[in-house]
């Protein structure tokens, strides 16, 4: 691990981010139409009002002036105002982000642990019935549309059995505070979280299985066995530790996708996070909101990828000394 490696990776991430910012501007300028006219359709605006609104939405001046102003504002984290609510986009994103981070973060952690254990078990016992059952389970959950799974779980556990609420984040009529409120929110989060955990578990299991299979051909496993170690020792001390490396990258990348990971599932459970915000912005469409969300989603992936790149040499000395 050299400073040069770290700086190179950081610069690469920065270049990607810059590209996203520029791309974002031009992408959203493809759309024809005048949002001021659309938004205030049927209302009599004076010329002065129209001008003020156009200015407020950053739609006056030449394309180049708009671009410069967009760059300046983006650097200051000013992502413009929502066409729908006229609130600053960044405020709405800040307000919705914690719910998404809680939901998808917990689901990712659960599926990560279960998936890795499943992958180790099926890879180490490859070709057995156990392996076949675990692998087909993983492939089936991977093939399932997550929001559809959510619809099924919602029907069974919320509508039919009445065990869980059908949606939202808390019971609006309860007026609970403190710990009670938190428990109520956890209660509302259970079903969407379970949905996502099942949806993600397959990928972790399949990646872990294939990296266990890769490691099983290595000489140091033969050596460990030759030393007379028990099978479980060979597995846990030698195979798993090395096989975890590719999964670490997958985990980091998955955490990058946390923010954007649950768009459809949040919609099914009306969970008030970034995903629901995205679907709501599709009606209209609320372009500044979509633009801001897309920027935040991309930035989070880029940052976590950088973290994975920088952490890797610490985890794997072979990369460090190369």
């Amino acid at each position, binding site marked *: 691990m050299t400073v040069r490696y770290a700086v190179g990776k950081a610069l690469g991430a920065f270049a990607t981010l810059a590209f996203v910012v520029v791309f974002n501007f031009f992408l959203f300028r493809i759309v024809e139409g005048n949002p001021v006219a659309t938004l205030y359709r049927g209302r009599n605006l004076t010329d002065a009002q129209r001008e003020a609104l156009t200015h407020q939405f950053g739609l006056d001046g030449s394309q180049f002036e708009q671009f410069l102003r967009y760059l300046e504002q983006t650097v200051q984290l000013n992502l413009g105002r929502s066409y729908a609510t006229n609130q600053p986009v960044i405020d709405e994103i800040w307000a919705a982000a914690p719910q998404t981070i809680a939901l998808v973060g917990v689901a990712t952690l659960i599926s990560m642990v279960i998936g890795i254990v499943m992958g180790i078990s099926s890879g180490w016992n490859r070709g057995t019935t156990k392996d076949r059952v675990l692998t087909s389970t993983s492939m089936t959950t991977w093939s399932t*549309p997550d929001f559809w799974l959510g619809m099924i779980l919602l029907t069974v556990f919320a509508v039919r059995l009445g065990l869980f609420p059908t949606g939202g984040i808390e019971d609006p009529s309860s007026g609970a505070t403190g710990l009670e409120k938190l428990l109520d929110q956890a209660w509302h989060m259970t079903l969407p979280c379970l949905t996502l955990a099942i949806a993600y578990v397959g990928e972790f299991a399949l990646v872990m299985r294939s990296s266990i299979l890769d490691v099983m051909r290595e000489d140091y496993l033969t050596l460990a066995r030759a030393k007379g170690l028990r099978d479980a020792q060979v597995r846990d001390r030698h195979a798993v530790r090395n096989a975890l490396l590719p999964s670490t990258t997958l985990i980091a990348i998955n955490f990058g996708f946390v923010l954007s990971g649950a768009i459809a599932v949040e919609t099914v459970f009306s969970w008030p996070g970034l995903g629901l915000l995205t679907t709501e912005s599709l009606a209209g469409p609320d372009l500044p909101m979509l633009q801001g969300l897309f920027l935040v989603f991309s930035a989070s992936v880029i940052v976590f990828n950088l973290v994975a790149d920088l952490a890797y040499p610490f985890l794997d000395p072979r990369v460090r000394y190369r």
Partner: protein
Amino acid sequence: MTALAWERRRRALGRTWSEYRRDREGMVGLIVLAVFVAIALLAPLFADESQLHAVNTVDNAVWAPPLDHPPLGTDNLGRPVWDQLVYGSQVSLLVGVAATLIAIVIGTVVGVTAGFFGGWTDSVLNRLSEWFLVIPFIPLAIVLAAILGPSLKNIILVIGVTSWPVTARLIRAQVLTVKQRLFVERSRALGASSAHVMGRHILPNVMPLVIANATLTVPIAILSETTLAFLGLGDPLRVSWGSMLDDAFSAGALGREAWWWYLPPGLCVIAVVLAFTLIGRALEAILDPRLRAGRQG
């Protein structure tokens, strides 16, 4: 030369097939897929297209459970779920295959160019595919679909232009190894042009990998179509499994427990996606030299 080459390729194909036939999971995938393709192609034999439009279903009972309106009941407008399911298979398969074709063509062109020419071409193309890899895929597809407007063509385009980078990387790596082989060097020494070497030597050697990879890209495209259609970004004029789920969810089918409406489309998606995945894995095991070595070792 060509006759000889074709004969050799035909024999190689025969060998691949006889190896493929021994893969039980791959065969299951192939049979399931064949059933769905037959249903999609022969849809008029199994279902009545006029029943997809609410104007023609005013006489049907609405929200009818399967027993009241066999085989699968009706939706909130009296449209039979079965007819929607049959015609929906066309959109899912079409989007899956067409988007994959776009992704494979872009991915192959980018991968072969990057691997073959190297240098700054390689760096620029690498950065481009890296960028597409880190972009959150579903949000990008959502944004593009929202901007371009909902239509079958746009859905295919959106999924196609966002799913090529994995293919490009795989192909590039393969080209880099093929490039070092002696027959490429010999061809060069005999004065072959870049175009000739690429077309006659590199591409045929990379092709098997392209095919295996394509089979594994289709399920991702089908899942993406389902999600985009569920979010209301599908073609409003065509019924697809995703748009059925959207209709059912928006009409409040969950609260009414009208499971016959939204259970079947999801099961169909799972079946088709699994079928493609099984076929892709079987092909990969036969065609990817790295896995092959692993199997023997």
